[in-house]
């Protein structure tokens, strides 16, 4: 097992190198660069730079260099653990990402926990009471949850909150706490704001998860060992939770790995719409403004999380299911 993990980890740097090239190439693919985007931003608010000024800035930012030189320079910095400087913010990228990482993680974990806490019991209930009223209600809710894009849901909820309850739900803090240092009051304020975005982010996942749980569990419940256990007089809830539920978990655990990066990137549009101060809007703006080193840095982190997440779910799978072993 240890050997297997080490092997996988040894592959990591090579994978990251490949990813870094792909990421850089994709970011550079659209026409124009940061300055084109900057000039466009200026133009849409009435001002404009002269051709000489633009050329001078392009040289200053090193954007006049050929593609490969730019990539190699970036790589050289990356190897030294330096994510470079954001063109737009004029601050180190590591610092910018670090600033939003805490809230991004908090929101991601909150919605992750919310997803599982809601989805698993709902899935178990549906499977153990198939075609009951409760099952049908949950099924309908689940289909709506899966079918509605979550940014749409966010917009609708925001409008309802504003129009009928007169509360504004953008951001994670009320204006009094946005720029204050951490305190108990600020924490409570965060809790008051975080549940709605977490719910919006989690709802599609919840629906999908509980559908999978229901299907898996239904398969298991009809297997002979369940019948045997029941015949031997085992208590129903104890039986269900102890054996079929555990097995029904397997396919879900294998998807945990995907959740890690998904919870970051999945929040991109929702976070932008709801004006959440997490990594989503930072990435979206970096991409729109072609702030390439910032966008590249964030995407590299995503790739890293994907690789690590897959590894983690493989390990978790091996831990909870003794039947799974590395083949030699």
């Amino acid at each position, binding site marked *: 097992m240890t050997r297997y993990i080490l092997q996988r980890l040894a592959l990591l740097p090579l994978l990251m190198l490949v990813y870094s090239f792909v990421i850089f190439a994709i970011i550079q693919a659209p026409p124009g660069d940061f300055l084109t985007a900057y000039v466009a931003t200026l133009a849409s608010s009435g*001002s404009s730079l002269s051709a*000489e000024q633009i050329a001078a800035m392009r040289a200053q930012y090193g954007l006049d260099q050929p593609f490969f030189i730019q990539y190699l320079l970036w790589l050289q910095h990356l190897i030294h653990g330096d994510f470079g400087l954001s063109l737009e913010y004029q601050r180190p990228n590591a610092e910018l990402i670090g600033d939003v990482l805490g809230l991004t993680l908090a929101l991601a974990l909150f919605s992750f926990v919310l997803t599982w806490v809601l989805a698993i019991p709902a899935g178990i209930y549906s499977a153990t009471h198939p075609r009951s009223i409760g099952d049908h209600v949950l099924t309908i809710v689940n289909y709506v949850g899966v079918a509605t894009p979550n940014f749409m849901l966010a917009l609708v909820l925001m409008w309802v909150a504003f129009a009928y309850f007169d509360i504004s739900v953008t951001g994670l803090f009320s204006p009094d706490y946005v*720029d204050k240092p951490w305190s108990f009051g600020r924490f409570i304020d965060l809790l008051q704001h975080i549940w709605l975005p977490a719910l919006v982010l989690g709802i599609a996942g919840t629906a999908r998860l509980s559908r999978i749980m229901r299907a898996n569990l239904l398969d298991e419940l009809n297997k002979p060992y369940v019948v045997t256990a029941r015949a031997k007089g085992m208590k129903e809830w104890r039986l269900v939770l102890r054996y079929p539920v555990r097995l029904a978990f397997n396919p879900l655990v294998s998807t945990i790995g995907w959740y890690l990066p998904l919870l970051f990137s999945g929040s991109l549009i929702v976070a932008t719409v709801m004006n959440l101060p997490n990594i989503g809007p930072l990435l979206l703006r970096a991409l729109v403004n072609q702030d390439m080193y910032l966008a590249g840095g964030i995407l590299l982190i995503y790739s890293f999380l994907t690789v690590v997440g897959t590894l983690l779910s493989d390990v978790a799978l091996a831990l909870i299911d003794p039947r799974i072993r590395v083949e030699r």
Partner: protein
Amino acid sequence: MRSSGFIRLSVAGLAVAASLGFAGSASWAQDKYKDAPSLADQVKAGKLPPVSQRLPENPLVVPVVDSVGQYGGVWRRAFLGPADSNNYVRVVYDALFRFSPDGAKIEPKIAESAEPSADYKVWTIKLRKGSKWSDGQSFGADDILFWYNDVLMNKELTPTLPGWIKSPDGTAAKVEKVDDNTVRFTYAAPATLFLTAVANQDGADRTYAMFLPAHYLKKFHPTYTPKADIEKMAQAAGFKSWTELFANKNAPPENPERPTMAAWAPTSRASDPVFTLKRNPYFIGVDKDGNQLPYIDEVRFTYFADVQALNLQAIAGNFDFQARHIIMTNYPVLKEQEKAGKYKVITWPTFGGSDAALAINQTYTADPEMGKVMANKDFRIALSLAINRDQIKESVFLGLGEPRQPVPAPWHPYYPGDEYAKKFTDYDKDKANKLLDGIGLTKKDGNGIRLLPNGKPATIEISVVPAFASWPDVALLVSKDWEAVGIKTIVQIRERALHFKMRDSNELMAEIWNEDTTAFPYTGNAKVDPRNSPIMTIGPAWLRWYATGGKEGAEPTPEMKRIVEIVDKARTVPPEEQVKLSQELYRIWADNMFEIGTVGLTPMVQGVVVMNNKFRNVPAKMGNDWPLRSPGNARTEQFYFAK
């Protein structure tokens, strides 16, 4: 009448300065000055010198719009992050001279006065004696000299000199210190537009303002601090070179430590979730009762990643005064929610020009036959006549504004007259058809599309960027009108960077953008001057022709050459003659349909203002334009909240 107001443009500073100056020093004893309660407390605690010592000997007396205000309050605004630092620039308008609220005059702000020599070659700027930076250090001629000698003349910091500091022969003006509070600018040729340029040297667009806190920035400049030390600092902050560090240290939105002269100085960064400005205890302005300005304690810019989320907050009444990023198409919703949101919506029309102008490429080469047609003046006139502007006005601009060609506003001295503003704007399909027949496009295909001499259908593509949301709609309406007179029209919506790239490489046939530079054809990056970077695709090959001294590109038409001649001449002639030349320029502009205007004078560009019901001293009518730094020209320091 109209022109007399604007003639004062370049000399206005003097008259106003003189009158304010007298009022300032003569009518009050020094203890008559009062300051905000928060500052008075600090004075009592001994943390701050008394207000009379913080103000210059002769403070700027700012006229109030309605009444003398009350101190206090937080001005809530929104912004879109660091790239939106011009949002800050517009609120503080931190300049030596500034435009008046109507945009017709230039008045002293940080400086006390400016005086030209009789031939306009020498300008003498006087600063206010005893004025101070926001950190309490004294402000004076040395701060301008530091900018000139160490920033402007430093090749690393300023690779190319900006146009306004150069004479037509390319030489830079000489800048000398006369005394601690007086600076003299000497040009090789008359510089009548000097003050117009100075009124915009406020550090906008990540440039250097013409006055810099020398005492602070010397720490980051190799002339005053060992270069190795600065390079070390730059590296520690993640910068590649000392110039990047210097630029960063100089930008108030990126560095709250950097002292400013504005009414409010930053206390956080534009890259923070909330960008906060707090009152500058050393601000040089007072009201007529001697109350030190600003009235408002604090300005808070809340960060929004998405402009629609920002608009939702505006509808909820969460901003106190904001026009920037308010989308004009939200005007009806904003109006509807006025009562619930406890705000008022007012509109400021654009400062002339056209809010959706069609530029037809007159040097298009990819399709030579069509290119020849597009270069024909009658073709462009026909296209203008074929457009139903009233329909565009009603359906795209919500009935606001008026059909017009891209010329200055009627209240502007450069206005060439109604005859030109309305030229070829009548919807007249018959006349358009006759003109098109006249240039030989008589044969038609089965769909009624006119055929070029080579037998291909006459086709024009309008490239449009959804930058102000409504341009694609304008393009679609125009395409219907043009097809009705037999010109096949394709509307191509493009991503802006691609559009810009195609514009630069002469690949666009036609585009829609706004013509917003008619009020300032000689400063900044005016669209009438083909030598500016192609900011409208009127004749990209003309730019090439001028840039290569006539070796490459296409030779401009005689009319275009005359425009260039006027632009060069107007910079050096006295104001009266400048007005005459400008009117001629816009007559040529409209006569030749270099650009086809649709609708203008709408509040499209930052003209829909959402204003808290308690917000006071906002002028009802105001010049709204980027060079005026609106709302900066409304003298934001005298805004206040009624209790």
